[in-house]
């Protein structure tokens, strides 16, 4: 029987929330390609992915930077594994800090540039976080009206919606005291869950504006090339162009992530299969909520790679 052609979107997730469990039998230890990338990461950024520590520099205390680098490297190892299996995307989507791996996958920037951008932008964000005292939390089960109501009650704490992940799934950013107050209010209103995330910075809101110029300075050092695979811009619901990339990178930390709209638009444009390229399956779960009918696979699921067979996959992007 002839299989129907799939239109595939590779999704690059944002920062991991905790150090991933990588036991000795994990493929990251044994696979030659993975080992090579981990060695390259150590050589160029000073970060040892498998031991989750910096071997040089004074960056060891920056936990979120280590998580960001780990997320970046694992996503790209998974991406290269998919390539090795003959599985290629028609389009790429990204969530939050997943942009660096997404751009490296699209070959708009190279692996090393993405690696150093991830580290250096991460450090700018972390230093700013320590200065301003920010935080973020996940709220599940409340609708937009309820979230807006809570924001109004906490006027002055500069609470913003940082991620529009689904109709009842939001991430909020703000000053730390504000987030401390948001969580019990959300729980009192009947949220299924409301808890603080690992981030120390109030990402994806205007509290990040003061570091935009510094980030643009870092971004200006890299060479941006034409994208070989189109990367979808969740803010404009259109594909990023080469000339959009630097301002996008500098601005995205100040703007929300419109993940729900992004997924809906990609489905409307014909995507039939979302493959999450990273260590977890969070984006697959978000997509499940947005559109239960759409096919999803997470490469972080150890059994998934074997199920992704090239004969099921079309390379024809038309």
């Amino acid at each position: 029987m002839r299989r129907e052609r799939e239109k595939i979107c590779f999704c690059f997730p944002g920062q991991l929330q905790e150090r991933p469990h990588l036991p000795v039998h994990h493929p990251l230890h044994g696979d030659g390609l993975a080992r090579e990338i981990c060695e390259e990461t150590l050589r160029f950024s000073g970060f040892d992915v498998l031991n989750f520590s910096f071997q040089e520099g004074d960056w060891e205390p920056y936990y979120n930077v280590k998580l960001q680098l780990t997320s970046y490297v694992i996503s790209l190892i998974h991406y290269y594994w998919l390539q090795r299996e003959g599985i290629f995307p028609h389009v790429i989507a990204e969530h939050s800090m997943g942009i660096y791996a997404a751009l490296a996958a699209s070959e708009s920037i190279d692996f090393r540039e993405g690696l150093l951008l991830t580290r250096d932008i991460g450090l700018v964000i972390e230093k700013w976080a320590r200065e301003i005292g920010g935080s973020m939390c996940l709220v599940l089960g409340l609708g937009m009206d309820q979230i807006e109501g809570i924001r109004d009650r906490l006027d002055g704490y500069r609470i913003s919606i940082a991620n529009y992940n689904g109709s009842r799934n939001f991430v909020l950013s703000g000053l730390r005291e504000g987030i401390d107050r948001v969580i019990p209010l959300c729980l009192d209103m009947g949220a299924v869950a409301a808890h603080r995330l690992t981030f120390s910075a109030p990402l994806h809101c205007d509290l990040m504006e003061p570091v935009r110029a510094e980030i643009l300075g870092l971004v200006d050092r890299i060479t941006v090339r034409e994208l070989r695979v189109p990367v979808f811009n969740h803010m404009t619901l259109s594909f990023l162009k080469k000339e959009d990339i630097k301002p996008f990178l500098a601005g995205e930390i100040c703007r929300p992530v419109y993940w729900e709209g992004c997924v809906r638009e990609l489905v409307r444009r014909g995507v039939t299969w979302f493959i999450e390229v990273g260590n977890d399956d969070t984006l697959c779960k978000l997509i499940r909520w947005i559109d239960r009918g759409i096919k999803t696979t997470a490469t972080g699921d150890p059994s998934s790679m074997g199920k992704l067979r090239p004969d099921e996959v079309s390379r024809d992007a038309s």
Partner: protein
Amino acid sequence: MAEVTEELILQLKKLIIERLKLEEVTTEDIGTDDPLFGEGLGLDSIDALELVLGLEKDYGVIIPDAEVGQKVFQSVRTIAQYVVDNRGTG
């Protein structure tokens, strides 16, 4: 007081598999008293939201807040007991 039946337990296991799209999992794989979160099935709060909706849709029971949710979602048996105790009261 109504009793939890094996039929309800089986229905709830099917609901978990269907709502969470656990394609590789069968009802036999889910122990009735096994923890659902963390070490057990490995579910998280995003999964909990799906289950809240599923229970509301299929059984008309409402999980009013996170505190109740934590107690209800300990295992399939605790979900079943909550359904039995609250069906028709939502």
